């Protein structure tokens, strides 16, 4: 589904990704772990199409398409979703209105019929039940005045409604207490399916206690330096990223 090859990317002239390669198939859950500054968030931003990230080398192919040439909205319409680390507050834009506009814009791009407000409301009610989110959140402006946990749950709720094929979760666990973390994890687990892939970018392994990944990759200095199954995450937890530096000194090829 997603094939990243030798990806190099710069931010403000500084090279952050230095030859990252990764393959993700439908149905798989991949965790990307790594120390601060390794390039984890840059990877998420490059995949979602944010401005200011310059790809200097390498390719990203998504279901056979060249993802890097597509506008952010086109990526969304083909099923790429990014759960942001810091979701923005948008005063004056109602959460429900926003979500319906997003879903219908995606459907229009895909040549599907728009959902009317009744159909949309029905869909939202179903998803609310699964996500255990109070519908009071829906009547508020997008993320405005939401707590940290509410913002992250709202991201997962949006994902549930938009039903992407590839979901990228950027530090979705950061800043959450254990109850909120469990709720978010449960939401993600509910959405796991053979057609959907997840890329979970995280600093800590605690999210992985609740969303068990099929693969764990270690990102350091702009590259994947080690890959394995969930036991790799536990090893990292024990040894820390410092142990990693010993195994993979800067400049060495993974």
């Amino acid at each position: 589904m997603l094939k990243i090859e030798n990806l190099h990317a710069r931010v403000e002239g500084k090279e952050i990704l230095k030859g990252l390669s990764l393959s993700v198939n439908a149905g798989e859950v991949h965790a990307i772990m790594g120390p601060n500054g390794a390039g984890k968030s840059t990877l998420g931003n490059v995949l979602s199409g944010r401005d200011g990230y310059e790809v200097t080398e390498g390719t990203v192919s998504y279901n056979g398409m060249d993802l890097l040439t597509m506008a952010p909205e086109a990526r969304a319409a083909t099923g790429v979703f990014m759960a942001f680390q810091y979701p923005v507050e948008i005063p004056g834009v109602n959460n429900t209105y926003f979500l319906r506009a997003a879903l219908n814009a995606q459907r229009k791009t895909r040549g599907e019929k728009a959902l009317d407000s009744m159909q949309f409301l029905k869909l939202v009610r179903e998803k609310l039940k699964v996500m255990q989110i109070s519908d009071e959140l829906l009547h508020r402006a997008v993320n405005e005045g939401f707590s940290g946990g509410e913002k992250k749950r709202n991201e997962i709720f949006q994902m549930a409604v938009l039903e992407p094929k590839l979901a990228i979760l950027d530090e979705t666990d950061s800043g959450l207490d254990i109850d909120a973390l469990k709720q978010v994890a449960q939401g993600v687990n509910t959405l796991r399916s053979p057609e959907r892939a997840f890329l979970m970018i995280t600093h800590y392994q605690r999210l992985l206690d609740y969303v068990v990944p099929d693969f764990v990759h270690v990102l350091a200095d702009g590259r994947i330096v080690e890959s394995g199954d969930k036991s790799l995450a536990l090893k990292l937890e024990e040894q820390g990223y410092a142990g990693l530096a010993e195994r993979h000194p800067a400049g060495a090829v993974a």
Partner: protein
Amino acid sequence: MSQPASQPLVDSLLDAPLPRSGIAWLDDARQQNLKAFATSGLPDARVEAWKYTALRALAQRRFSAVDVAAPQVAVDAASMALLGVDGPRLVFVNGVFRAELSELAGLPEGLTLQPLSQALAGDAEPLRFSLSRHYREPGDAFARINAASARDGVVLRVAANAKIARPVHLVFVAAAAEVDLAWHARNVIEVGNGAELNLVEQHLGSGEPVHLATLVSDIELHEGARLQHTVLQNAATSTNLFRRSSLHLQARAEATLHVFELGGALVRHDLRVELVGDGAHLHTRGVFMPHGRQHIDTQLAIRHQALNTTSDSTWRGVANDRARGVFRGAIVVAPGADGSDANLSNKNLLLSPGAEIDTKPELEIYADEVKAAHGATVGQLDERSLFYLRSRGIPLAEARAVLTAAFCRAVLGDLPNEALREHLSTLLVEQLPST
């Protein structure tokens, strides 16, 4: 330098015969104001209040003051329909009262509503204070020519303690004419002690020709009176519209204004509010959205003159294409107006590189224990918000429209008439660059 001799606009207006009322004080006031207009001509950029609004191009045009067709020209009544506004209605076409488009039957008790032309034919004395005024400031050209030339307008009175719930609808239409046309309207509005009034003022038009229109409104709120005033300025883009609204609030009076400046070519609104009675309260919300080559200038001046008076103003500007917006928010807390609380915010959005908005906050405080907050910004749409919407699949143009509408909606939120609020919200969205 003012050079009346070189201003065809001034010459053409001076050529027009003054209306004659047969009322000595009124004819005298008209003469005096005309003389002042002839002497000073139009203000130029050296007059501070006209610094950002140049009249050079307009000054080169000639306007006819005579429109014999105005009483008959066809106007589509549907064009003035507003949701949630179904009360009494007064309609003026090119400055001329049109009874057949108006709705004056069955006025609620306590409401007096008639065209100025009729009021002057009866007992004109109650209008003397308003209509015999002289305008002395260097920038008063349009108020002067209005005082000299207005033949018609609205005379509205609400008796003490009367509550007029259904909105009174005042409509000013710029309609087709044979020539470029100048017309003037004068409103005198008075809300009695403890009375309540809901007012909707609407400006619309249908393209050609070029109009020069002036509207001067004097609004007096007596003790404890309450006014809800909504203004929808959606004039044709060939109309040059100069308005002055002067509000005078006595003790504990409350005025709530919502102003939507959408249409017009060159538009200027002088909104002057004097809080003269203890505990008077003013609440203003406004949005101006010039696009194309429009120029929309709002001059809000609030004077706190009594104890514990409060004002709260939130204005938004959105300029697109090569349009220009101007906003001046001037608050004066006069000596003795202790305990006053004044709040003013003006945020502006530029949607294109050729657009411009000049905003100028001014605050002068001469009293004690005053709370005052004041802020103005000019910026672009937030890139992070735009990206967030796009990352969810909303195309760039639509994302911009959604965020711009949200920016403007801040001025709509507290409009109590829900149907009207929805109607205006839709109009705002339609005004935005197409998605």
